């Protein structure tokens, strides 16, 4: 914004025109008076050409970016009874349950942010047999998305659990327009396998101004 160019200077008839002086000192309608001292000084006022720089210490904490990460280290067991006859072939998103540690709420300070990034990382396995599946979906603001859907395949082999089938899952989503206010993101699970075990490393959000 302001590189100040006082409109009245240089004065030649100051004694007969007080308004000109007053406008140079205080004119809230523009950026060419000393009124810019009321919080309007910005990078244009810094002597960049002279080698001056803005340092990290000059920035307010979390002014340009912010983020938070949640997680859970315990085994999270989901049994098929809670999913009300979930059918992997005909997905009903209402049956998906949020995974603790893979669900986060975050506040967007300003609707003009450049980007909000979500990243997640979790482990999932099950004791499914043929025809049984566990599925995970990304939900944004309680609405199921089509952008991240993962099917946890059968995690046993020959009737016994085989660690080769254990998998970690991860992903990211970048959103360039979110309204100011609270938002939520969560990975949710549904399954018709007897048991689905999840360990959640992280769900994080990071916004950049």
């Amino acid at each position: 914004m302001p590189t100040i160019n006082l409109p009245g200077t240089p004065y030649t008839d100051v004694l007969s025109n007080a308004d000109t002086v007053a406008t140079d000192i205080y004119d809230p309608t523009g950026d060419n008076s000393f009124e810019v001292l009321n919080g309007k000084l910005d990078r244009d006022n810094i002597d960049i050409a002279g080698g001056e720089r803005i340092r990290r210490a000059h920035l307010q904490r979390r002014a340009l970016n912010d983020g938070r990460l949640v997680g859970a280290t315990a085994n999270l067991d989901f049994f098929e009874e809670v999913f009300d006859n979930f059918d992997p072939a005909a997905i009903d998103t209402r049956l998906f349950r949020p995974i603790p540690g893979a669900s986060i709420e975050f506040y967007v300070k300003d609707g003009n942010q450049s980007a909000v990034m979500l990243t997640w990382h979790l482990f999932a396995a099950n004791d499914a047999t043929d025809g049984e599946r566990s599925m995970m979906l990304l939900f944004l603001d309680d609405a199921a998305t089509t952008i991240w859907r993962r099917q946890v395949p059968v995690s046993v082999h020959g009737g016994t659990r085989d660690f080769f089938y254990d998998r970690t899952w991860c992903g990211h989503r970048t959103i360039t327009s979110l309204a100011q206010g609270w938002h939520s993101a969560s990975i949710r699970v549904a399954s018709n396998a007897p048991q689905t075990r999840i360990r959640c490393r992280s769900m994080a959000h990071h916004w950049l101004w």
Partner: protein
Amino acid sequence: MPVDLTLQAEGDTFDAASLNDSLGDVETGLNALTEQDIDEGALSRQHLPSLVIEVAPLVEFVATHVYTEADCTWPGFNNNAVAPGVGWREINTTGSPGGGTDLETTFAVARTIGSDNVGGILVLADIHLQTIRDTPPVPGAAFGVYACFAIQIEHDTGGGAAWETIGKTERYVDMRNVQGDLSDEFLHIDVPIRTLIKAADSTSPITKVRAVTAIYDPGAAGVHETSLRHCNLTALVLHAGAP
């Protein structure tokens, strides 16, 4: 610079020239502030440009796409060769044949790291690897086959725009030996790549970023292929340096 105003003293001449001097000093000072003039924590996002110069168009696709060893054999670490044959194949909606929508994004203008306040390019890519398999299935025969992934940038180092592999982004996934059965097993592995492309990687104008894939085969029997599904790519040009 600090504002250093010489105050008028009683008896000094108060005229246009004296006002020009005093107001001019303040004007000059406010237009050339130094680091020392700014208090710690004084600046917020209202005072500064965005940390993100550009969010390149986000790319994402979901359907399955298949790549064959014959089409894209891993060319070696940090190698720029491109498919078909020995080289990287761009990940795209049609797989090995190419020609579909690539997992690739183009900047509005060429971005040169170190110039115009471009401090780096943050790239995030996620690739859902469904299978690595041999065709026809040969259980127990295909040890050591890897699915390979990397990020490439298109930049012009003086000889025209060309793709270059960012070596630090190469990722490899082993074909798992599941109780001796290597055929057609669903791996279902998410392959994440997170990287910051810096001046050490390129100081030439960068026009595009993309994700590529290849297959490494140590000589195992059979013809190998990979099946990918959901992929997405983000590239953010970050602001750094002088404001």
